[in-house]
């Protein structure tokens, strides 16, 4: 088993019990998709529907970064995770 550190903000934080940061234990070799599925199991359908569309792809505007790198620049939802990875999940955000 391994542990990754999940961080999220704003609306997604509210859907994850108000936790900005939390640790998540996953089987070795788990992917980003597995981590998001596990969070969906913990926090329920409201979170699942916010993150995934009907075909289990990320909803538009949701971005996930692993150790700072957006997963779209790696293997998307299939990006493998390692023990101690920092996973940042953004709801749609813009401006500035």
């Amino acid at each position, binding site marked *: 088993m391994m542990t990754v550190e999940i961080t999220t903000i*704003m609306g997604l934080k509210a859907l994850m019990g108000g936790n900005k940061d939390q640790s998540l234990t996953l089987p070795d070799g788990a992917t980003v998709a597995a981590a998001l599925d596990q969070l969906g199991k913990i926090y329920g359908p409201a979170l699942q529907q916010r993150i995934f569309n009907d075909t289990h792809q990320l909803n538009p505007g949701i971005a996930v970064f692993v150790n700072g790198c957006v997963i779209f*620049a790696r293997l998307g939802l299939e990006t493998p995770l390692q023990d101690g990875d920092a996973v940042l999940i*953004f*709801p749609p955000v*813009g*401006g*500035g």
Partner: protein
Amino acid sequence: MFQGGYMGKVLRVNLTTKTVTVEDLPEKIARDYIGGAGFGVKYLFDEVPGDVDPLGPDNKLIFAPGPLSGTPAPCASRMAVTTKSPLTGAVGMSLSGGYFPVELKFAGYDVLIIEGQSKTPVYLHIKDDKVTIKNAAKLWGMDTQITQTIIKQDVNDQNTRIACIGQAGENQSKMAAIINERRAFGRKGVGAVMGSKNLKAIAIRGSQQVPLANPEAFETARKFMLGAMKQSPVLYPEFSKLGTPMVVDATSAMGIFPSENYRNTGEKDYSASIGVEASISRNKGNEHCYGCPVGCTQLKLAQGQSYEGGMSDPEYETYYSLGSVVGVESVDSIIYNDMLCDKYGLDTMSVGVTIALAMELFERGMLTAADTNGLDLRFGNHQAVTQLIAEIAFRREGIGALLCDGSRIMAAKVGGDAEYFAMHIKGLELPAYDPRGAKAHGLNFATSYTGADHNRGYAFQEVFGIPVPNAYDRFAVAGKGWLTKWNQDIRCATTDCPTMCGFLMDMALPAVAEQNTADLVSSASGIALTKEDVGRVGERVNNLARVFNISAGFTRADDTFPKRLMEETIKAGGSSGQRISEADLEQMLNEYYEARNWSPDGVPSREKLAELDLPEAAVLLAARGLLADD
């Protein structure tokens, strides 16, 4: 003759001779530059020598909305002001929104050029074709809000739209802004140029309509844009409800929200105290620019003993400049100090970053209480920030005079190692993103024609993870030269020239921005533009501005970062371990120049200038022996 979009006229006002002339807008300029920043850079290049004194009579202020301003296109009430910046010495181009931009179109003009220098304070009153230079003696010394109120009484018209300077512009602070309503042509000291001309305000009222060349095609393009806005994952409700302050939470989580003059970015989580949850608790409603269904501007009322009654609309950047970068964790002081900057007519960003430099020097003993008029300038002292804003606006002897021309000049005055701690590029103070954790965003600061300016080539791929045109690792160096060129050209072509609000382009139309611009501008004006034509406009403007800057003395050595960012590593947070080495900078710059077809010295090639139909730029470079391939 234009069929629509453009009013076809350039209004020229000479404050030395007190003459007013109206010229035709050449169709070639409209086709090649579209409007806004494009017009500004073109007229600046043609009429102002690169070595001109920015605060002398030969500098000009070129105000230009775009062909979509005043049409039913959403979010197009924007205007560029272009000048030679007294803060940077480079092209100074600043955009504002609100209601002022469309009014110039309604009065019948696409461009307003202010030249010369009045001996006494004046303001300009434009009422359609009646243009009057009026005495502003009684307005001199007044703040921007009172000035707008009094002028409306003076011209007996409450619907007149006004852009004006406050005391900071009068005192020629190089951080002075031009304020219209509550919005600002904020950066690069454009307010100081207005002050140097003794021009207190420009008041406009127009009664005309902006014609459309092809109303049916325009309506189709407009509907497409509104549809894309509705489908945007972020415009509604998040952005319209929260506005730009939500970005504090995003960049804090990424570890790129700079704090305490960049010495400890990522070490303290400022989103806990000045993030969106804290700031939204002060909301009193929102405001829209003309023709904008989003209304992102969040009006906030400060609470608590020191600041109650303070009301303003701080944007993301201000939570950094009057917040984290000066170590302040009070939203109320940010709201209040933002209000003060607007009132005096100051750029909140440059002011905050310059105060941050003073604080760092104070904590290091390089400034003492004798230099600070007794102020305790330790990070976090928000009362000191309040006090300093007034000292700067009035250029008060001592600390006010030391800070009022920005961080570069302040560091030079202090001497020693002060420049190491001065967070500017080409004299323009850095925006609220630590470049070490977002390399293309940073490279844009280093290469933008206006200095450290996030808006000239916003890397939304890095900051928001949007994979358009591709996805990028924000820490990587390779590929960032190409990406920066792409971001700068598209930003310029689809927001700065047509003058559309940049937020929409990033949030609703990132993949189709050029086509959307081509469809709207073509149908409004009757000038047929393809998306490739639009893309070339962005490239043309960036190249012409580069050549202006070369003529002003800028070289490759100026495309760089503050030393601190190249020597120190981010120690904590979401970008821990990141820095930009000399080798990283070299690699990114080489790639950027190559992508632009510029020489290794950063000079546009004859081939590129010919491709962009910029013979005037080639002539200038050739005359100086600088044309790369000669």
